[in-house]
């Protein structure tokens, strides 16, 4: 059975918006969580810093740099700029 047909967000040749997150400014994303909860398309994703030797320790979200924000589903981003408006430290930049 051949693969399902492509879906709209997989329109070939479509350029996805480039989302850059300034890690110096955005230090405690898990506590702040403003952009994560405002994005209508749930583009962002917060994970703990993936260090192998630290894998058995609990990570305290209050400590800078233990959690890091990614824009994993940037193909869903509609550049509505809600995250930029809501971010208290202006860490997010989006270029179409």
């Amino acid at each position, binding site marked *: *059975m051949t*693969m*399902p047909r*492509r*879906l709209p*967000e*997989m*329109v*070939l*040749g*479509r*350029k*996805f918006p480039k989302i850059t997150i300034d890690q110096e400014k955005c230090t405690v*994303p*898990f506590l702040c*969580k403003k952009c*994560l*909860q405002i994005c209508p*398309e*749930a583009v*962002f*994703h*917060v*994970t*703990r810093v*993936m*260090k*192998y030797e*630290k*894998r*058995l*320790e*609990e*990570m305290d*979200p209050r400590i800078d740099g233990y959690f890091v924000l990614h824009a*994993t*589903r*940037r*193909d*869903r981003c509609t550049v509505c700029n809600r995250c930029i408006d809501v971010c208290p430290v202006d860490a997010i930049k989006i270029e179409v």
Partner: protein
Amino acid sequence: MCYLCDQYGDQQYGNGLWYMNPYNYARNMYKLRLPGEVYKGPEAGIETGEFERTGPTQDDLFAAIEKGDATEVDNIIKALDARSRQSGTPGQVLPLKDALAVLDLMTCIGLIACLCRKGVRAIDERNEHEYTCMGMGVGMLKWERWPERYKGGVKFVNPEEAQEWTREMDRRGFCHILMLFGAPFIGGFCQCDYPDCMALRNAVDLGIGTLKSHYVAQVDYDICNGCGICASRCQWGALKFEATTRKASIDQFKCYGCGLCETGCPRGAITLIERVNLPALAEVW
């Protein structure tokens, strides 16, 4: 039947449904390591940093789409789908009645905080009342080894409590997806919704990963009075309200058979029928 049933199902138990086969819950499942693979199965949890991924990632897929290379997009989707089948990570959608049956077979059920909601919506589930995820199997007994993953601790429950809790989740509108950590070892039972659950999201957006359930929803037009409650519960975009006939209409090719519309309908107008009974859906998983 679905590929999991073909491999792990047994006709004696639950006429071939793989999750009804008690041998898939046996203790020895836990040691089942595919030869040559390190940290597969429950140890290689997403939080461990050791979850090495072979093959293409989502960024490769985005790059291929942006480049506009059709064959590469197809190949990457095939590879992503093959890998999720081989490691069996996102398993299969289960309706409520099957979910309750599975909880009878399973031992060592622990309510835990959900990983996806923590990552996608930064929701911090710290105490027992907020947990929306469920860890299953003997692997849960080692939960102290992963303090980050089980930050709020684990609430071990007996099957009755687990079933009551699953009914509560169903009332709220979460789909029940059985998660495998190295098929057929069942490691988790997720309560999912769109777009928070990554397994559900990849299934709806990219068409890979989570398998449809063994059932498909069907509306009984005589009973349905067009109240529309079911429409808000469908996470798959398969159920629409047909204004002309004032009835709910289900696109059975998109329906994942999660049964939320069936349990949500106050008049019982929607019933889940076996996917096998609809020949056209035989290969639609």
